[in-house]
């Protein structure tokens, strides 16, 4: 792991077009500003991990469950 020391308003640049800047730091945490190209997704790690786990647990549940289909049909508003 690369470890660098940065002061407020100092940044690091990663690859082509990704910049991470320290906006503020204090006892409660560090506030970062991230600039990245639109195709690069930036997420807080804990929520990303939560979504990955949710996707993994949902995969393979592709077998239709009739009771669920029936219940959802009850929610469809008549057009």
């Amino acid at each position, binding site marked *: 792991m690369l470890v660098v020391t940065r002061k407020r308003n100092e940044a690091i640049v990663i690859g082509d077009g990704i910049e991470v800047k320290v906006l503020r730091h204090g006892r409660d945490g560090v506030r970062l500003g991230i600039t990245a190209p639109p195709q690069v997704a930036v997420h807080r790690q804990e929520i990303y991990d939560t*979504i990955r*786990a949710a996707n*993994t647990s949902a995969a393979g549940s592709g077998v239709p469950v009739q009771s669920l289909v029936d219940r959802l049909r009850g929610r469809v508003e008549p057009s």
Partner: protein
Amino acid sequence: MSQPAPAPSAASEPLVVEFPSGIPGFETCHRFVLVASPELAPLACLRALDPPEASFLTVDPRLLEPGYDLTLREFERARLGAADEPLLWLAIVSIADGEATANLRAPIVINPRRMTGCQFIRDEVEYPVRYPLGRV
């Protein structure tokens, strides 16, 4: 804000949708087909064509939460190559221990015009990852 796209019609052919980054946990899955059938409706099946060929049940989040916010950030629209055309929104359904839930926090959004999709994670909106759909 643009109008949401209608749900896929029952008679539609399987549509191949490109997911340039895959989805979290399935980053190697770049091509999916969306299968809608009368038996499944209002669910639709999103199936990966690339290994590990994961398969997901999905539902339109507005069916669960009629006021579901369909706003995308500018860079998210850019990732879908979307101007203001209608987009297709899908919440992934999970069934575990007989309980069905839908992920409203990280919807799949598809641009039907470009056949490009992405799973977006909503940071600022507190939609649940496991919205309860009841026992099945």
